[in-house]
């Protein structure tokens, strides 16, 4: 599908459609950016004031003027990267196990993993919270990272991907005397880089944007992630009396995601187009 959408093959009305579609998609983002660059008081009476100057960076200065903002940013980076690395390690190992190893109850266990896809995280939030309270893990990085490592989707995704890799590669490596771990590490894992990238991007984005678990696990402000921290900064009726600040917060929280997108654009587009899975 991706190959068929090539420049030159699209008729003129197709291009118009694409431009209109892109404009519609970009409009709220541009609107958010413009609002974030306006003085709050100006916007209270008329949000249309965002369409004309003067513009100011005062809302961003206010965000960075909060001495905790950088701490929240750091927390988000640690939690998101920690979760992403953990998910990649665990899902790759689990995927290899389900795809390549023969062990008792393999099918049953894989079915259980698949069943996990049907269970929303909200359904287990109470026992999960109690478990972490018992373990004394709230308000800690492990408390924020560990729940994110349990991902049925990741295991399913990596298993499916690894199953599609020809077994002859394993057999050839075995003939050369490679151990199971060597096969996994040196033969299979390098072939799963596209899938790893896709899973990493989705995991990072999900973890970065997560609000619910950090809200109830990180209850001390020095352990807030950026999403919770920025929400705590909002005053009541922020949507009216602090609209510019609110939008600046949204833009600020999106910047790291934007950077990730720019760096991993290729993998994200592949993942969306469904070409990461063979």
């Amino acid at each position, binding site marked *: 599908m991706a190959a068929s959408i090539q420049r030159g093959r699209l008729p003129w009305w197709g291009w118009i459609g694409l431009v209109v579609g892109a404009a519609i998609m970009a409009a709220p983002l541009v609107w958010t950016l413009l609002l974030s660059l306006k003085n709050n008081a100006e916007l209270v009476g008329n949000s249309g004031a965002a369409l004309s100057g003067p513009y100011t960076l005062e809302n961003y200065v206010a965000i960075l003027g909060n001495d905790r903002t950088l701490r929240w940013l750091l927390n988000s980076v640690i939690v998101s990267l920690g979760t992403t690395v953990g998910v990649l390690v665990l899902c790759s190992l689990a995927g290899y196990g389900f795809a390549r190893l023969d062990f008792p109850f393999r099918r049953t266990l894989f079915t259980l993993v698949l069943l996990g896809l049907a269970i929303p995280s909200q359904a287990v939030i109470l026992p999960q919270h109690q478990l972490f309270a018992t373990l004394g893990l709230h308000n800690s990085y492990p408390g924020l990272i560990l729940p994110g490592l349990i991902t049925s989707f990741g295991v399913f995704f990596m298993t499916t991907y690894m199953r599609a890799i020809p077994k002859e590669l394993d057999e050839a490596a075995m003939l050369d005397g490679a151990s199971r771990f060597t096969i996994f590490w040196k033969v299979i894992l390098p072939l799963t880089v596209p899938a790893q990238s896709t899973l990493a991007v989705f995991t990072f984005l999900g973890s970065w944007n997560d609000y619910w678990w950090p809200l109830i696990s990180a209850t001390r402000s020095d352990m807030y992630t950026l999403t919770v921290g920025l929400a*705590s*900064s909002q005053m*009541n009726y922020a949507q*009216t009396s602090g609209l510019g600040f609110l939008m600046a917060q949204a833009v600020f929280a999106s910047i790291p995601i934007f950077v990730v997108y720019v760096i991993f654009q290729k993998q994200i587009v592949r993942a969306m187009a469904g070409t990461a899975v063979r």
Partner: protein
Amino acid sequence: MRWMLALIAAVVLGSCSQAEERTGLYIQRFFGECGSQYGSATDISKAEGECGIITTMINAFQAQHPDLSVSQNVVAWPGYPQLTAQMAARDPPDIVTMHGAVISDYAAQGLLEPIEPYLREAGIEPGTFTNAARGAVTVNGRIFGMPLDTHGGLWHINTRLFEQAGLMRGGKPVLPNSPGELVAHARQFRERTGKPYLIQSLVGDPAGAARNMYTYMMAQRAAVFPDPKHMRTNTPEGRRVADLFRRMTAEGLGTSNMDTPAAIAAFMNGEGGIYPTGTWMIGQFETEEKTRGRPLYRSYAVLNYPRLWGEHVVFVSGHAWVVPKRERTAEERSAIARFFRFMAEHNFDWARTGHLPAFQSIIDSSRFRALPHREDIAPLAEIGRTLPSYVQRQSAIEGIVGEEAAAAFTSQKPTARALGDADRRVTEFLAELP
């Protein structure tokens, strides 16, 4: 190597001795974070807005009590998911901000301490609270919160448009005294200004419609909650209220398609006569009143909801400081009492937000009455009524009542069906509670 070990030991020992000298006081609050503006400010008189004033008050408390180590945790509005999680993890803060309507939920579960001992130690007599403030923090005869304020519905008025409509007398807006008079005033206003009399936020703002229902049903002495498990709004009294606002909306005398930001913007831009909302908007509208060139410049008044039926009462709630249950040392208890005392002493400063003070002496004081518009709204402390304290989950219930009432006001549902649905949904909800 040796000097490095000595340095680490010195740092570790030094930090230990410093940390253990002072009693900790862990305060959790909403109202937003404004550290960039008020991070180290201690002059309360110069602070503005809820966030600025509360931040400066806590800074000032710390500055005046160097023997205490005050930690301030700002939570995302309204902070109850976090508080509940902290309680479940048996790690609640020492003092937390809480709405009066929520106190009964936590108190009924035994999660809050009655605070009479703290008040005694702080030298605060509960009898000095206003009736409305005391009512908001009292559950089954026990006081579970140190009231910070009373907040409730007010009619914010554009006096320039009222003048144009011929509804000013002696420099004061003339408000109706009956449902018929309300409709007559609204029609006159519409005829002379071409604008709606009421700016109503009926979209995504259940609190506004619920406030109308509670206020005017209470005025008719209707028992909205006859017992802890039932709600009754589909009654002659309830239908009278809903039908009145339905008529106002249907005739175009009140707006029907605005959410809160739209309604606030409409009022500030002079697009209607009255915006019924709460005490919390006074500061914002005062700023507009003082800004040359703005539609509300020298054209703003604020009054209590008018009496349309029976008794002149207004549904109110309030903010309070509560103390979650946990083990505490005598020093920690004393720190809480000192914090309450400080808050009581500075209750006037908090009242500059627009909320009504929790102490009658401050309401009666000349400095409070000298604040703009406060003389006009001061009676709210007397006429304010809370819901019965036996009603739990008042916030969730307000959402249901407001949603169904708004459906009735905007003719999306027949009145009887909307109010019947509200009663059924709330009663089913209450039946689920232990």
